[in-house]
Each structure stands twice: as structure tokens, then as C-alpha cells.
């Protein structure tokens, strides 16, 4: 068993354009220009960037939910860069995803029970519905969801509850890795704290590795061990959180950190400008 769960090297992704017969792409918009990423077992890695940085694309590329144009992705020692979907599917149980908007990432016509039980039966984590139901019920305590949720559909739950169903869905399959894509953006600060807490506890208890995508550096600091800072399709800095935040090497990282207003009066903050105006 490899110590490093994911090793991505030189990943390039472009959208649009036409595919030539030899598989190469012509034209289109490049989103990732050659990114290296490493995620160790049980480690929480943050991927931070503003809009257009390519962070969401990187997450989906690593999970092979989109195809990559160049580079390699190695999962637990196996090269999955160009694996056909039929061979990817059995591996998918080991890498799961939590989404930003649980309103759209949970099937509006399914009950919570169905949303959580079906994957368990499909991957044979549970061998019949009774066992699956038991597992789900047992898990509800961990995520502080009332059992009555099981019969509800997603829009009958509160926002915080929906988010926790999304987290439960990912964790119930007992994966090795979870991709959390902007999962707390748009949440109230209190609900956000609950979700982050839950995430930290779960990853520790279940030994999950996690890639946490966010535009918010403060949130990254709360949950991540290491961080990758992205800008325009490239990684501009990476390292352990305490190092990057204490002594950022890249100007862009310093810009990002400086732009965050802290809830303490700082008279010089507004006028402090680390770089000429960009627009």
C-alpha cells in the first residue's frame, strides 16, 4: 500500500476545441497548464485560488471525472490517467466527492434513505437493504442528523442538514479519499463551523485523505495540513499551512492573505496595496 495516495504530475486540461483523430485537442480554452499535486494517506490538503484559477477543474481531473490532455495521475500506485471508464468505476468507491450546493447535488426526487442506501448496495458495502439501513442509521449519530430525515426529500430539509447528508453520502462508502469542493461557501459562519468540525472529526476517525477546495484562505487554515495556492491554471506556491501563512514566498499568496479583512480594526488595511490595480 503506497504511502502517497495521489500523485499528479504535469496535469493539463482544456475545454472546448475539437478532438483530432489521434486523440489530441485542437483549439479550446486551456484551464490547467501543468499542475503537480501530491496527497498522502490521511492528509488534508487545501487547494485555494480565486475564480479562474482552475482549482475546481484540478479536483475533478484528479478524480477522473473529466479527461486530462497531458500529464499523469497515479492513485495508490496505479496509473489512472487514461483508464477507460469501465475500469475506473470499481475504483470510484475509494474516492468520493462532496459538493458546494447540496440542493443540486442531491437528487430532488429521491428520499434521503435512497440517496444513502443505494451506493452501499451497489458497491456491496452492505449485502442487503436491512444491513444498509442499519449502517446509515448508525452513521446518523456521527453527523447529528435526526432519523426522521430518512423519509424526507432534500428540499424538505434545512440547508445545514442537506450539507450533512452530502457529507454522509461520501463517508458511508468508507473511501480512502474525499474531494470537498467549496462545501462551506455560502454558509452562515455558524453552520460553516459545524460543517468544518464534522469534517475534521470524520477525516480523523475514518483516516480519510481529503482535498479541500476553497477560495477562502481562512477556512483552509482551519482544516488543512498543507495548501496549494493556484492562479490561472498553475500552482504558484505550496507547503505546510503554518509555513505558507507565516512566510508566504509568492507575491500572489501575500496578496491573497493581505486581502482578507480580519474582524479587528486595522487602520492601514484599506489603503495597503501590495500590487498595482489589477482588473
Amino acid at each position: 500500500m503506497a504511502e502517497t495516495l495521489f500523485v499528479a504530475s504535469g496535469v493539463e486540461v482544456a475545454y472546448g476545441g475539437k478532438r483530432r483523430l489521434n486523440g489530441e485537442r485542437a483549439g479550446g480554452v486551456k484551464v490547467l497548464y501543468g499542475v503537480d499535486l501530491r496527497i498522502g494517506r490521511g492528509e488534508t490538503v487545501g487547494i485555494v485560488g480565486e475564480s479562474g484559477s482552475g482549482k475546481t477543474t484540478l479536483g475533478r481531473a484528479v478524480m477522473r471525472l473529466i479527461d486530462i490532455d497531458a500529464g499523469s495521475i497515479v492513485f495508490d500506485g496505479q496509473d489512472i490517467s487514461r483508464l477507460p471508464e469501465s475500469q475506473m468505476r470499481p475504483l470510484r468507491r475509494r474516492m468520493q466527492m462532496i459538493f458546494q450546493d447540496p440542493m443540486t447535488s442531491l437528487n430532488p426526487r429521491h428520499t434521503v434513505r435512497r440517496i444513502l442506501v443505494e451506493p452501499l448496495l451497489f458497491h456491496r458495502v452492505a449485502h442487503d437493504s436491512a444491513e444498509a439501513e442499519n449502517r446509515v442509521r448508525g452513521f446518523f449519530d456521527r453527523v447529528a442528523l435526526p432519523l426522521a430525515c430518512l423519509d424526507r426529500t432534500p428540499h424538505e430539509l434545512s440547508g445545514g442538514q442537506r450539507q450533512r447528508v452530502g457529507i454522509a453520502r461520501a463517508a458511508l462508502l468508507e473511501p480512502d479519499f474525499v474531494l470537498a469542493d467549496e462545501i462551506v461557501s455560502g454558509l452562515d459562519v455558524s453552520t460553516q463551523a459545524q460543517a468544518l468540525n464534522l469534517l475534521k472529526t470524520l477525516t480523523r476517525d475514518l483516516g480519510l485523505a481529503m482535498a479541500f477546495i476553497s477560495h477562502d484562505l481562512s477556512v483552509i487554515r482551519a482544516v488543512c495540513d498543507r495548501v496549494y495556492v493556484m492562479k490561472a491554471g498553475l500552482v504558484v506556491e505550496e507547503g505546510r499551512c503554518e509555513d505558507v501563512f507565516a512566510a508566504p514566498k509568492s507575491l500572489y499568496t501575500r496578496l491573497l492573505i493581505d486581502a482578507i479583512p480580519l474582524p479587528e480594526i486595522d487602520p492601514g488595511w484599506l489603503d495597503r496595496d501590495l500590487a498595482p490595480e489589477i482588473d
Partner: protein
Amino acid sequence: MTDASASSFLAASGPSLASRRLRALLAEPKVIIGGGLILALIVIALFAPWIAPKNPLDQDLMLASLPPAGLAGAEPSYYFGTDDLGRDVLSRLIYGARIALIVAFVAASLAALAGTTLGLLAGWYRGWVDGLISRLVDIWMAFPPVLLSILLVAVLGAGVGSVIAAIAIIDWTRFCRVVRAETMAQAEADYVTAARAIGFPPFHILMREILPNVVPALLALVSLEMGIAVIVEAILSFVGLSVSSDTPTWGGMIAEGRQFIHQTWWVFAAPLAALFATVLAFNQLGDGLRRALDPVLRR
């Protein structure tokens, strides 16, 4: 709502999803009115031999062209009067409902089945699959539907089966377009990405994730299609291309009644009214279903 209030709301155990959906359906007035009418029609059609006062085929020239009960010269037992061959209009109306409903349900279902299948495939796989199916739909829809149906029935020969086949063959495109568009929209949604991330294969995703979300639009369309099927059947029997002339159909009755519209207007008016009411009922039902089944709209 805050988590606290949501928890207390959910504390009491509730009814199942199916019964909640049913209740939501029945809360929509159009569903009750339209659905109720259709249900009544189905009962009438099913129990026609017991409900119809007379044999619809019995001719009695002594009792020809009687007006509806209540008007001068009427026979009390012939409630809607008789036609020029002495046949009871009401009984013919009741039996005519059978043909109308059989055609409506079977033709609409077949068209829906064909159209939905192709629509799902086109919407999910896109690429050349979509290209092929969309071109097919475009070409198909370029033909004038009524003329095409007349042509088909003329070729296939008269009979209920031919009428059903003609309608299904022509109208599947309507379903294909809607289902294709709906599938494309749903395929972009995060819950589909989630399903892919879980590892479900495409067939599972199409059938168990996307289709349930397409069903509301589909149901409304099926209901509308039933109304259309009834009209097409009436048109075909009006021009004598539907079932054999013995079996009473509303379109046939309209054709017969048209000749003597000034003397025996009831022979023309009764089937027309029945047609109108039935199509209206299907439309109302369809509209009501659309509103009741859309979880977003309801909130």
C-alpha cells in the same frame, strides 16, 4: 429554516413519499377536475354494455331522427335522440368513448415510450448519437402530421391498430424533443456528477437518477398527447379511415351528423361536445400534473 425548527418538524414520523406525492397531486384542483372526468369516462367506456340504454348498432327506421328527450316529438327512452337510421345517439356516444380512450392511452403510451427512449439516449450521449437522432426528428417533424396519418392509415388499412400505429409513429418526436432537452439539462446537474463519482454506470444514471426528474414534464406531455390522439382519431374516422363503419366513433358520428345538421343537429352536437369535454379534461389533467409534480414550483 434553522436546524432547531427543522428537527422538531421532523421529529414526528410522517407518511411515505408516495402518499405525500399523492396528496400533493390531489391538492391541485385541475388534477381533480380533469382526472375525475377522465376517470368517469373510463368507467363509462368499461361498463358500456351495462350503461348504454340501447344497442348502438340497432337500426329502426320507424324511430329515425328523433330529437333529444324533452323536445317535441321525442321518445323518452332515447335521451339524446336518434340519428337518420334510428340508432340511439347516447348509446353510440358511450360506445364511441371506448374507441377514443383505447386510442388515447395506447397511442400516447407508445409515442411516449419511443420518444423517451430516443430522447434519453440523445441527451446523455450527445455527439453523433444526438446528431443522428436530432436530424431524424427534424426530418420527421417536417411532414404535415395529419396528411401523414391519413397516408399511413390508407397504407396500413383501416382499424384501431392502424390508427394507434399512425399516431405513435408521427408523434414520438414531440416526446423526443422534450426528453432530450430535459436530459441535457439534468445531465449537467451536480447530482448526476455525484452519481458518476459514486460509480454508477450510465444505464443506472439514466433510469434511476435522470428519468425520475424527467417524469413530471413527461406526464404532462402524455396527458396532452392523449387529447391530441382523441382528436386525430376523430379526424381519421371523420374521413372514414378509422375503424369499420359499424363501430360507433365520435368522428364518424360527426361526419354522419354533418349531413343533416339543420334537421338533426343533435347527432352532430353530441359527439362534438363529448370530444371537446374529453380533450379539455386531458389538457386540464396535464396542466395540473405539471404543477403538482414540480417540486421547485410547489415551494
